[in-house]
């Protein structure tokens, strides 16, 4: 059993100084990440992804709860622990007057272990203009520089806050390939936030969706794709508006037709619906983007009362680890 390299427990963060008007960005995050995992953190703008990552690294102080990173308190990381972590912030801030090459040399000096051949290779691969001043770099080049600086000391834990947001598709794919090389030895752990679900589908072993300050959907990538399904019903007669389906993430009814998104697909549900409503039932696989939208649109204001998302019907196997957690506040 791999050991957890990252544990967030009951993590809360509010930016308000007024204890009576707390406006929590994070309302209780629980997330455990095992060694070797590649975790994709998804969430809408303002959902708290960056806040969560910053609270994890001691860049922001949690209002409540705790983060344990590499067996240390995230707020009070030792220099030793920090030397095993790589972090790329959403906006890379560097020294505008230095040449890119100088920033790399300056950063390298802080680390006892620094893999310069790797850095040279990455700079070449990503065509980083080393003799350019940082001030003159484009947003994409600056982000690339940030990534190079975060990889140079070959960290065990890599935390990336939207690392590819400013990169073009070619550069993004090159970055993904590098990420895949990095995680190939399975001892490295990566947590990264992104909006680009198709990137996650290539590299992530696990997905955590942030919604309303909590982890709304969390599971192994393969597991989620196996279990989150949409059923399309075409019944012989109009369906009741309050059609109840256990474990549904979303239910949409239009006359004799319905589409039901299940958090935990089970073929027996198909048989039950087929018989109960004399309906044709087809099963649709959902990709990550469709899941993301299903989670957010259902949980947003227009949630149908029939879908009881907190009552996820567990599958026949009693293995609770296989059941994605659905928690829509």
């Amino acid at each position, binding site marked *: 059993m791999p050991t957890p390299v990252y544990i967030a427990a009951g993590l809360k963060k509010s930016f308000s100084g007024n204890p009576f008007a707390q406006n929590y960005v994070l309302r209780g995050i629980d997330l455990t990440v095992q060694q070797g995992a590649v975790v994709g953190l998804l969430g809408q703008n303002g959902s708290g992804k960056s806040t969560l990552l910053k609270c994890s690294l001691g860049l922001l102080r949690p209002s409540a709860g705790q983060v344990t990173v590499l067996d240390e308190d995230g707020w009070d990381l030792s220099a030793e622990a920090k030397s095993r972590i790589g972090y790329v912030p959403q906006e890379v801030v560097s020294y505008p007057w230095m040449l890119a090459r100088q920033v790399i040399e300056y950063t390298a000096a802080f680390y006892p272990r620094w893999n310069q051949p790797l850095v040279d290779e990455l700079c070449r691969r990503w065509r980083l203009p080393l003799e350019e001043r940082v001030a003159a770099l484009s947003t994409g080049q600056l982000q690339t520089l940030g990534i190079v600086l975060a990889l140079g000391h070959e960290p065990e834990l890599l935390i990336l806050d939207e690392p590819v947001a400013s990169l073009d598709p070619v550069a993004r794919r090159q970055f993904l390939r590098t990420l895949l090389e990095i*995680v190939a030895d399975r001892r490295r752990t990566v947590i990264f936030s992104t909006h680009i679900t198709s990137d996650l*589908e*290539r590299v992530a*072993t696990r997905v955590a969706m942030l919604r309303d300050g909590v982890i709304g959907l969390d599971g192994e*990538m393969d597991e989620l*794709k196996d279990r989150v399904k949409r059923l399309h019903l075409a019944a012989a007669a109009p369906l009741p508006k309050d059609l109840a389906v256990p474990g549904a993430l979303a239910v949409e009814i239009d006359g004799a037709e319905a589409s039901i998104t299940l958090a935990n697909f089970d073929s027996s549900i198909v048989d039950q619906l*087929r018989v109960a409503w*004399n309906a*044709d039932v087809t099963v649709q696989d959902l990709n990550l983007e469709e899941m993301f939208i299903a989670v957010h649109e259902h949980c947003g204001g227009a949630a149908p009362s029939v879908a009881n998302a907190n009552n996820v019907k567990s599958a026949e196997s009693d293995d609770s680890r296989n059941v994605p957690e659905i928690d829509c506040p």
Partner: protein
Amino acid sequence: MAASVRFQIHPSSGVPIYRQIIDQVHALVAGGKLRPGDLLPSVRTVARAADVNPMTVSKAYSQLESAGVVERVRGQGMRVLAPADRPAPKRRRAEFRDLLAAALHRGRQLGLDDDQIQAEVDDLLAAHDAATAEQTANR
């Protein structure tokens, strides 16, 4: 014998990548493109060609191994086994059952009775077997 198979992997499909690989190996074996003794491309090769995490590829290979479709040969990779060595997994029956259930339901909606449905199934089976036999004879 190394087979030069190339998997078609669609990372953004709703079907998990490991399952896409498993399905394609099943299909390639059934279609004779992969024969007993052939080696599957290495995990690394597949992962690189498709730009996907090698972990999902090894997951597919491990499941194919436990299903008795391939065997792990030290130093060589995954070798396709003869179908006789392959235990018939219950899953295949369950999958077929699901397909059939939808068809039966539609049959009922169309007002067919038991005998009519049964006759269609027998008919289709006979036609399918005849077509397969012809294919084998032509080879």
